[in-house]
């Protein structure tokens, strides 16, 4: 892979540029594999520091919320879990929903960091898939066989951020869309009711 990086990169860049002109005339510079990988390197470095810091569970949840808020596109994840119902939400409701959603995700998944204590995440590779980049990381936990996590990275928000996590084909965004949909149903379709539930859930 590294034997002839220059010509390969030139080729990739030319190909990408040609595709870009056709597909995204407004975007000036496309997300590249090294940039997507950089982002996830930082995420993984932060997560590794947290899971090996022997902090309390609530401190870990706070750390996780900070990492999620900083490197993930919480806006687009929240909006897409609300799906078509985001059309009838006011701007103010969307903002409160997004805030509540961020806290909910941090509590729900931050809790599980307990299982990661003493473990290690390592970035293994990156490739372009459709309109985004997929960064592959390996998670090694004590007492179980290693598994793979895919971070989906996009710059379509204007910044390089990840918008999904996929493990064994299971997408966090799609699973949470089901969950948010169920909460909305439980509240008879009321977005304010959903926001209240979300603040308590996770």
């Amino acid at each position, binding site marked *: 892979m590294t034997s002839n990086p220059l010509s390969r990169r030139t080729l990739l860049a030319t190909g990408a540029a040609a595709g870009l002109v056709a597909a995204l005339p407004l975007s000036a510079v496309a997300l590249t594999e090294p940039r997507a990988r950089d982002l996830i390197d930082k995420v993984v470095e932060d997560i590794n520091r947290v899971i090996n810091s022997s902090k309390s569970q609530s401190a870990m949840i706070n750390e996780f919320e900070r990492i999620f808020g900083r490197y993930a596109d919480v*806006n*687009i*994840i929240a*909006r*897409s879990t*609300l*799906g*078509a119902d*985001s*059309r009838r939400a006011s*701007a103010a409701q*969307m*903002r409160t929903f997004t805030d509540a959603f961020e806290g909910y995700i941090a509590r*729900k998944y931050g809790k*599980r960091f307990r*299982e990661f204590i003493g473990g290690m995440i390592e970035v293994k590779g990156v490739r372009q*898939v*459709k*309109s*985004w980049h*997929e960064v592959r990381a390996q998670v090694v936990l004590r*007492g179980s066989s290693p598994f793979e996590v*895919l971070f*989906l990275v*996009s710059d*379509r*928000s*204007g910044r390089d951020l990840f*918008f*999904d996590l*996929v493990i*064994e*084909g*299971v*997408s966090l*965004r*799609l*699973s949470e869309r*089901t*969950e948010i*949909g*169920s*909460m909305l*149903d*439980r509240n008879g379709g009321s977005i304010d009711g959903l926001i209240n*539930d979300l603040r308590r*859930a996770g």
Partner: protein
Amino acid sequence: MALLLAFGLAACAKAPASHSPEEAYDPYEASNREVHALNQSLDRNLVRPAGKGYAAFMPDDIEDAIGRFAFNLSIPRSVVNNVLQGNMRGATEDSYRFLVNSTVGLLGLFDPATEMRMPEATDADFGQTLHVWGAREGAYIELPVIGPSNERDTFGIVVDLFTNPLSYLLDDPESYYGTVASVSSGLSNRGRYSDTIDSILYESADSYAQAKSLYTQNRRFEVKGGSAGALSDPYDAPFSNTLKDPYDE
């Protein structure tokens, strides 16, 4: 058999065109929910306590060995399915794995094949074979005891009971060892992944919907031999009624 297969392929319900391909097609939701309630009470009263007890009582090493033993016994089934899928390489690799683990690995209790860095097991089953042959996954079904499935996989499970060569080669009671080991390793997983399974069954807003979503996503990934499913770009989603950028607010 051929007639049965033709029936199986044709019987999988077709989702209407308006149905989102990211979600499972679920026309039998009402009866599925009844089965789900049954499964949930079965889990709460029997499987969960038994799994936790089993995981607590059994040393981890022995649980692992039983899990490996059960998995090894499923390999001949994968070989048959690889052949049916025209995946001769997978069939050969799985055969070597079975051979090595059944001998050097003491009937599969150990896994020297992985330690020797042999290719990963394909874990092919008849549901996957049907996918390769072009069958639709059909409607979502929650089966009693077994849990989430769909029409294609349910049919696959039944066929796999008959295509495992071991069930023809072994006499009673040896032929039951595999079943006992599978049940044990199932209990062991229930105990070991207790937090994950509990969070789906008892902490989600709608455990039926969540189990359906997780099963469908994971199963689609598996039948495609572990390649990513048909995710769509959320930035393309027409969820905003205006074409205004959601970041402009």
